């Protein structure tokens, strides 16, 4: 069994800055039980010496909560996009007979090594007005009543960490397409269903019906497969399709 060997190799795609060339470096990591990819990157930082014994620099990476709830540490490990914190080395080693392959997400500009800039995702949240527009923060009593069923529909959508897995897997989200991606579409659906948030639903549908909106979804259904929070993204995309169609029809008939 490979996990019984004393060490394993990690191949990491590196890039010194946004304009620098990509290159690969290998690191030999002593095996111990309970390792995850984040610990591997911590070990490299503490001792940045490559497999061929050259002094290197610590690999730059994003990390924060390490509980798969903040979304920071998303990267592509053995070709699968996921969070480094919950990528257990014992499992990752079983996926390959060679070295573990680690790359930054490909859909965002690389800042350095495994750090990418996901600003585009947060900008999309602005575009779809992903918030509830309340009158103010003074005391106006409690919010509207919400049935347990409505809460059960909203809660899964509200767990989106803006981690980037869905857009990394989405063939339509790329340099050549203006598609805002499944995460932002799903947030628009979440806030359109909110009893107060639906006041802005037409503005959101307008965004979903325009360039980069739901029409750019190619229905590959990759997003839902890679979402670490198992958000029903394809349900949101389907709903966005229906709602924008109805919205456009209503507009056409001048209502």
């Amino acid at each position, binding site marked *: 069994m490979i996990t019984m060997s004393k060490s394993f190799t990690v191949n990491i795609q590196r890039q010194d800055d946004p304009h620098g060339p990509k290159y690969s470096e290998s690191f030999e990591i002593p095996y111990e039980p309970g390792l995850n990819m984040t610990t591997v990157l911590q070990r490299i930082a503490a001792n940045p010496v490559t497999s061929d014994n050259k002094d290197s620099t610590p690999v730059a990476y994003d990390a924060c909560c390490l509980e798969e709830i903040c979304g920071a540490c998303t990267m592509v490990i053995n070709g699968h996009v996921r969070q480094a914190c919950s990528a257990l080395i014992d499992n990752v080693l079983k996926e390959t007979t060679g070295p573990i392959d680690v790359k930054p997400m490909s859909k965002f500009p690389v800042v350095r090594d495994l750090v990418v800039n996901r600003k585009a995702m947060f900008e999309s949240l602005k575009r779809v007005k992903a918030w509830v527009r309340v009158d103010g923060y003074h005391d106006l009593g409690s919010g509207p009543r919400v049935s347990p069923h409505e809460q059960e529909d909203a809660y899964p959508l509200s767990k989106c960490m803006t981690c980037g897995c869905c857009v990394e897997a989405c063939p339509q989200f790329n340099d050549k397409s203006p598609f805002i991606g499944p995460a932002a579409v799903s947030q628009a659906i979440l806030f359109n269903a909110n009893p*107060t948030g639906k006041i802005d639903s037409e503005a959101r549908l307008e965004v979903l019906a325009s360039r980069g909106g739901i029409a750019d979804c190619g229905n590959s259904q990759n997003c839902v497969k890679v979402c670490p929070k198992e958000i029903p993204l394809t349900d949101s995309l389907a709903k966005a399709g229906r709602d924008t169609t109805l919205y456009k029809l209503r507009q056409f008939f001048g209502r």
Partner: protein
Amino acid sequence: MGKQNVVVVGGGLAGLAASMRLAEAGIHVDLISMVPVKRSHSVCAQGGINSVNDYTRQQGDNEWLHVDDTVYGGDFLQHQPPVKEMCDWAPRVIDLLDRLGVTFNRTPEGLRDHRRFGGTMYERTAFAGATTGQQLIYALDEQVRRWEAEGKVDKYEYWEFLGPILDDKGQCRGVVAQDMFSMEIRSFPADAVVLATGGCGLVFGRSTMSMICTGGAAARAFKSGANYANGEFIQVHPTAIPGTDKLRLMSESARGEGGRVWVPKKPQDGRDPMTIPASERYYFLEERYPKYGNLVPRDIATREIFDVCVNHNLSVEQGRLCVYLDVTELAPETQKKLDGILEIYEKFQGDNPRKIPMKIFPAVHYSMGGLWADFERNDQTGGLVSGSLRNQLSTVPGMYVIGEADYQYHGGNRLGANSLLSCIFSGLFVAPSIQNQLSCLKDGSASDAPSSLYEGAVSEHKQHMADLVGNRGDENPYQLHQELGDSMTRNVTVVRRNKDIETTIIKIAELTERYKNVSLSDKGNWTNQNFSFTRALGDMLLMAKVIAQGALQRDECRGAHYKPDFQITAPDADDPGELRKQATAWCQSFKKKNDQWLKSTVAKYKPGGVDFSYEAVDTSLIPPRPRTYGLKGAEIIEEVWREMLAAADKDKKAKVGT
């Protein structure tokens, strides 16, 4: 006069609450955060948020009882007026969150559902699944994004706070921060600065806290003249999953459903735990506390697990401290109720806890202490004067502190589900104070301050960076951090003995010396995380000193601070007369202890060291009383204590009469 501006440092619940409230008031905010604010540590909170609610009110609950539970749970170390104000506001805070769209769990009628948490008799806790913190921060993040879209808030994400900028009168006129991508260092002029920078768990190496919780920002403010209070009060949660990178929380409900804690009687028995017969297992909580078993209070469970591993060398593993938390014997339908937390264990440990006992150990969880913050008492309400220039103000004029970064609200021990409340409350409540502060600034806005002030501060930090990057030595910062965490965790967490704390203080001094010879493996000037970490390590060494020295000096037991050498001997007599005598002696010792130690520790920075002084605690609302949970003769102790209080009261009145 130029445009006024506020800098908020930290984008967790407290920082976001302050930002949105300030933006609503028409004040421009620069929000600086080391991570995109949506990824702040607040996301890790699971349980819920407390407030008196319609349901508990009908059972006799009210805001005073919430205050009482909070200060009793905190062993009376917190000033009571801020707690009163927070508890009075709590129902309105939760109403607001509800209106912002937080997906709180619901009753069949569509009302917010509540659960009961530790330290109270009432179901005060509103919750959103098992990820309440995440759901709350998302709601506030969305509001701040709305203000950002309107140009009222400018976010600086992946920017690290390096220190406040003080003018020659000591007034805070802005901050210096660094872009963590480009490494650019620049100033942010401000008419008021709010620090909402969280706790300092990384001082202990690994904790339940996120990677950004180094205490670096607090240390930098401390070095600039902001005092730090009650640093030694650190909450340790009994059950966390030990990881090689961090310690992840394992909820108390596993024990609530019947989970049992044990270790093999043979130290580091190598066998598969399922093959170890019951006679060779040590169910230490059940044996030591036959009445409460595995459901002893949190602090006791924490101390016993620690004791078994550290003092009795019975840790399950060699070289790593842990005990078994065993739910394998539970019926499948009971296990199913625990699915949520069992899945976390499975995901991160790779073992199925339904079949193999979980390995858990206590973990540093929350900093009750923090930067000192002022308040102004409202004598009519017992709470605070809303909008007072003093509320949440640090010892640096113009610099406010809120959230886990401050020392208010939780005293010696925090109650579950009170932290989300204190963070959001202090964030919302600081805004009117800042608004008033801005309206009465004599020197106009910070943009009118001389540019030399800002240039000087920036060049100082640039020099610090150049010095650290260019440092020649042979010490590895990650190695130093590990040694610091090991020593702090071993000697300054659960059970504290002065000789052990002294060992750690010597260790901190040694590490501080070795830090001077630290060498970076990355000397570059682009996204240099190696540099960022090493700079924060210097700050962690300072925070460690504040925590350890504070712990050494406080010779008593209070809340999370437990020193067995200074524990008041518990009554043990069976004879009622003798028991009463012992209870009287106990109360006298307790009074003596409170006279000496019912005080906040206040640390003040001086170059090369830290000065400590002690500040009286405002207990104007609820007189302190003994915490008697689990003590023999608890009722009689409480009775004697009430008699002593009444007698003292009578004496006082008699004196006033003459």
